[in-house]
């Protein structure tokens, strides 16, 4: 590692976080008017927009329709200015195709697809600024967009990443940590059911360390879930209060 200490002797990471500390999460649901649901989410410097269209009639050839459940269609795209070095095109490359597939699989596991046979749901994710954890931010933003669109889901899906540095597991890793640390673990879970719907690990990690990292990442997911759920509930309470006025009137 070229002169870069990912974890200082005092136990702080390069951006000043503690090993188990998340980046600041901020979000807003309903940023767009025309989509059925939308959300904007920031995890530190990673910024993502997600939009949901549908469920609606199958677009294009009707042959794609599934007779017994909803067809989920995803597109993952990165703004050409989102990365440190400019991207030549926003999508179509191998990496974003793979990401598109991962998103599709993740959300197929949680949306109650059997309720909507023969129709289609579009989930579009646009990364505006990338600083590590693109998949995680995309999943979390898309979850919020689905909630905004009122799409029935089994639970939230929350994704979080983690790594292992200097014998210490770290969570919610940023771009620098992604590119210099050894292994990276990405997990998407259904927080209330403790079910894992997606897991990816690249690079090598000793078996003994894996469970330690996993524990931290699962905790990270829980923390993210709490943050998201609290704000979603607050907004609903506000709306309930407004409706009460009307019902009374």
């Amino acid at each position: 590692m070229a002169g870069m200490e990912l974890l200082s002797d005092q136990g702080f990471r390069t951006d000043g976080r503690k090993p188990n500390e998340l980046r600041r999460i901020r979000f807003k649901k309903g940023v767009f008017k025309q989509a059925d649901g939308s959300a904007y989410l920031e995890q530190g410097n990673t910024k993502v927009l997600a939009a949901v269209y549908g469920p609606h009639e199958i677009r294009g050839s009707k042959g794609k329709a599934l007779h017994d459940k909803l067809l989920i269609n995803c597109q993952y795209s990165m703004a050409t200015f989102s990365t440190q070095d400019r991207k030549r095109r926003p999508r179509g490359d191998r990496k974003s195709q793979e990401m598109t597939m991962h998103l599709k699989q993740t959300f197929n596991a949680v949306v109650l697809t059997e309720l909507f046979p023969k129709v289609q749901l579009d989930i579009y994710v646009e990364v505006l600024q990338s600083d590590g954890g693109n998949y995680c931010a995309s999943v979390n933003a898309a979850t919020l967009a689905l909630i905004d669109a009122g799409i029935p889901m089994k639970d939230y899906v929350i994704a979080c990443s983690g790594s292992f540095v200097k014998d210490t597991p770290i969570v919610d890793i940023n771009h620098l940590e992604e590119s210099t640390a050894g292994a990276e673990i990405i997990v998407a879970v259904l927080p209330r059911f403790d079910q894992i719907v997606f897991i990816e690990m690249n690079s090598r990690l000793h078996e003994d360390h894996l469970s330690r990292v996993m524990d931290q990442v699962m905790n990270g997911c829980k923390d993210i879930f709490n943050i998201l759920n609290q704000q979603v509930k607050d907004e609903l309470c506000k709306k309930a209060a407004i409706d009460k006025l009307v019902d009374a009137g």
Partner: protein
Amino acid sequence: MADVDLSEPEKVYILHSVQENLREDGRGCEDFRHMEVETGLISNTNGSARVRLASTDVLVGIKVQLTPVDPKKPNVGRIEFFLDCSANATPAFEGRGGEGLASEITAMLTRSYSCFSAIDYTSLCLLPGQQCWLLYIDILLLECGGNLFDAVSIAVKAALFNLRIPNVTMTKDEGGIELDVSDDPFDFKRLDVSGAPVIVTVNKIGHQHVVDASEKEEACSLAKVMLGITEKGTVTAMKKEGSGSLDSESISEMIESAKNVGIELNKCLLNILKEEEAKIEEPVGFLR
């Protein structure tokens, strides 16, 4: 874009409302919808801006890069426009669905900015005959609510205003001149955008014309005129679009409107950008 297939009576209603100078949403023919601007919200870029015009939403990021000069124009820097129609705006843009629209908008922008007075191209040249800055002006269209060209051009101008080009120190080496780009975020120079144009689109509806047409109004228009207009009222590019034709008097009237609105737009934009500069607040981005 959204639902723009209107019924005959709806079209007639819009036509008459334009005739009456009382549009569907209460605006007059030369009124713009209100607009919100923010700059410097994408920290990965050298300059960025977001413009929201009613429900039309545009995000622009500019990145600068050192590049060899064009041998035919050895004394100037270059700009390059790229526009991506995000599927977030409409499923029709998925995959390559938005490319046609994108190339239309970038073509108009390129023409508007091809005039040397638009920005100071010579200041973008570091070593005449050798190295210059290339500005990648990347535009992301996030939501479509009518009048895309104008909104995009305003966002581009705002992002250029926000642009911070790192300073470069040159040291003479035996092999030639070495360029060293400063990585201090406060060591930068700005670009003079006073000559940069905005695009004003004027739609002909019935016998009248409107600026800043909504999507419904655009669906009722058979011909429009687009002009790149600077703060001084100079025209840097013009184009007529649409399947209808126009007589020369109405073109004269339309470009007159475009000029007046264009001058006002440029003024308002510059004022508000200067106002923003004076504030030291965290960008709100999409959070509000």
